[in-house]
C-alpha cells in the first residue's frame, strides 16, 4: 500500500451525517483514504454505498460533518474551489453516463476543451491515448449506442481520466458485465492505479472484484448506520468475527452464519 508514503490523505471524512428526508443513513461516519490507495466501499444493497459516493463527489450535501477531498472541504467550498476540485477528480458512473449525442472522441475531449488551452491536434492525440489506455483504440468515431456495456464503461473511464485526475471514483464498475469483461475491467482499474498512482475509490458489492483490486475496504451496515468493518478484505474474510462480514465474504445467507 502507498498510504504509508503519503503525507496528507486524499479524502478525509469526519463525523459525516446524512440521509434522505427523515431517514438517517449515516450517523457520524469517519474514515480516510490515503494517496494512491485503491479503496473499496462495500456493503449489501440499500446500505448507502451509492449515497456515500454521491456525498464524496459533491452531488449530495451532508446534514452534518466534513468531507475533505484533495484538501477542499466540499461541504463549505465556494463555486470556484469546487470547480478546481472537480478538475482533480474523475467519476465513472454505473451506466457509463456517456453523452449519447457525442462520439467517444468527443466525449473524452469535452473536459480537455473546457479546461485546457490545448490545440485541437494535441487534444486529438490525448484522446487517442486515453482510448488506447482502455483498449478502445480505433473506436474514436463510434457513438455510445454502437458499443457493448463493457466498452461503454471503459469509454466512461477514459473520459473520467481525461484531465489526469488525482482521484477516480467508480460506482459499481462490474455491474451488468459478464465475468470475463468484469475481470478485465478489474485488472484495468488495478493497472491504472499502479501505473498512474491515482487514488481510486470503488463502490461495489462484487466479491471477486473486491478480492482482486482492493487495498483496503470499509463495509457499511444498515443497522449501525456506519462502518461495521475496515481493513484488508482478505484479513476480514479470514478473521472477522462480525456475522454480517462473515456472511458477506463467504457469500452465505445471514441466518446460516448467526
Amino acid at each position: 500500500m502507498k498510504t504509508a508514503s503519503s503525507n496528507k490523505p486524499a479524502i478525509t471524512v469526519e463525523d459525516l451525517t446524512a440521509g434522505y428526508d427523515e431517514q438517517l443513513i449515516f450517523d457520524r461516519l469517519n474514515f480516510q483514504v490515503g494517496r494512491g490507495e485503491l479503496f473499496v466501499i462495500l456493503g449489501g444493497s440499500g446500505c448507502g454505498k451509492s449515497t456515500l459516493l454521491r456525498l464524496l463527489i459533491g452531488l449530495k450535501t451532508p446534514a452534518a460533518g466534513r468531507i475533505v477531498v484533495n484538501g477542499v472541504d466540499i461541504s463549505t467550498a465556494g463555486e470556484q474551489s469546487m470547480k478546481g476540485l472537480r478538475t482533480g477528480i474523475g467519476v465513472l458512473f454505473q451506466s457509463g453516463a456517456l453523452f449519447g449525442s457525442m462520439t467517444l472522441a468527443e466525449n473524452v475531449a469535452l473536459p480537455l476543451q473546457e479546461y485546457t488551452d490545448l490545440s485541437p491536434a494535441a487534444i486529438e492525440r490525448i484522446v487517442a491515448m486515453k482510448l488506447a489506455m482502455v483498449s478502445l483504440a480505433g473506436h474514436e468515431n463510434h457513438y455510445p449506442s454502437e458499443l457493448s456495456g463493457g466498452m461503454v464503461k471503459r469509454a466512461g473511464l477514459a473520459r473520467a481520466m481525461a484531465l489526469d485526475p488525482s482521484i477516480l471514483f467508480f460506482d459499481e464498475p462490474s455491474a451488468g458485465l459478464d465475468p470475463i469483461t468484469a475481470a478485465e475491467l478489474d485488472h484495468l482499474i488495478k493497472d491504472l492505479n499502479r501505473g498512474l498512482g491515482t487514488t481510486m475509490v470503488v463502490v461495489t458489492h462484487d466479491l471477486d472484484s473486491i478480492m482482486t483490486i482492493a487495498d483496503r475496504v470499509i463495509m457499511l451496515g444498515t443497522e449501525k448506520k456506519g462502518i461495521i468493518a475496515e481493513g484488508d478484505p482478505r484479513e476480514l474474510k479470514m478473521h472477522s468475527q462480525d456475522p454480517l462480514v462473515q456472511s458477506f465474504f463467504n457469500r452465505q445467507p445471514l441466518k446460516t452464519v448467526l
Partner: protein
Amino acid sequence: MGNTYPWPGHSTATISPGTQRMEGHGVPIISVSGEVEGEILLSLSGRITLEHLETMNREFQSRLAGLPPAPLAVDLAEVDYLDSAGALALMMLGKGDGGRPIRFVNATPQAEQIIDLLGRLDLYSQHLKPVQHFSILEYAGEATFYIIRGFRHIMTFLGELLVAMIHAIRTPHSVRWADVLDQMKRIGVDGLPIVGLISMLVGVVMAFMSALQLKQFGADIYVASLVGIAIVKELGPMMTAIIVAGRSGSAFAAEIGTMMVDLEVDALVTMGFSPVRFLAFPKVLAAMLVVPLLTMYSFIFGIGGGMLVGVLGLDLTVFTYIQQTLKSITTFDIVTSLIKSMVFAVLIAGIGCQRGFQARGGAESVGSMTTSAVVSAIFLVIVADSAFAIVLHYLS
C-alpha cells in the same frame, strides 16, 4: 405427479355446490370421508392449481360448513399436481377465523416440498407501514408545498439561466455555438414545413369564413385586411409558438429528462460543467434567435393562404390583395409581434428544459415531464399573449 402446467381453457368443468364427488378432466375433486379419531378426513384428487382456485375455495367452504370444528386431515394421495396457489389454498384452511388445525397425509415428495416452502414463509403478517389516509387539510398542505417547491425550482432555474446569459455576453467564446446552430436547425429549419402548412391552412380558413360574411356587403377586399391583421398580430406568433412547444419544447424536456435518468447530468456536474449553461442555454438562445424567423415565415404563409382564397374565390388580383394587406398592417405590428414571439421562445424552451431537469427515476417521469413541458408552455404562451394584448392596447 404430472409436471405439465395447466394450459388456458383445457377444462371448463366446474364444481357445483352440493355434489359429494365431482368427476372431470383435471378438475380437483374434494370429498369428505367422515371422521376418524376426532379428525375430519378430506380426500383430494386431480389438479390443485391456480386455475381452479376460486371453485376450490367455494367447495371447501360448502363442504366444511355444517361440520364440527374438528382438526382436518387432508389426504393428497390422489392429487395429480399441486402448485403454490393450490398449496396456499389448502394451508389457508388452517388459518383465519374459521381455521382448524390441519395436517397433510400421503403427500408426494414434490407436494411436501411446496407445503414445506410455504410453511416457512410469513404469509399472515401485517404490512410494516400502514396505508396512510390523509385528511383534506393535509392534502391542501401537501399541495401548497408542492406548488411552493415548483415555484422555487422555476425561480432557481431562471436565475441560473440569467447568470448563463450574462456569462455568455461577457465571454461569447464560451457559448457552445455548434450546439446553438444545431438547435437552430432542429427548431427552425426542421419546423419550416409544418409551420408553413398550418399557417397557410389557418389563412385559408380565415379568408373563407370572413369572405362568407363580407361578400354580403360587397366588402370582399377587406378579407385581405382581416387575414393580414389576424395573422400578423395574433395567429402567426401564437400558431408558431404552439407548434414549437409541441415539436421542440417536448424534445428538450425528453432529451434532458433522459439525460437526468441516465445520470449524464450528474456526470456533467462532476466534470465541473453547469448543466443549465451547458444544456439549457444553447437551446434557449437558439429558440430566441429562430422562433421570430419562423414567425415571419408564418406571416408569409398565412397571408399567402388568405390570398389564395382572395384570388381564386373572390376575383381579387394578387396586387390588390397585397396592397390591401400592406395598408392594414403597420411596422409597429410586425416588430411587436416578433418581440412577442421571442418572449414565447424563451418561455417554451425554458419550461421545456426546466421540466427535463425535474425528471427523476425512470421512463415514466420523463414522459410526464414531457407532457407537462408542452402543457405548461402553451399555458404560459397564452398568459403572456394576454399580457401583451393589454400592454399593446395601451401603447398603440
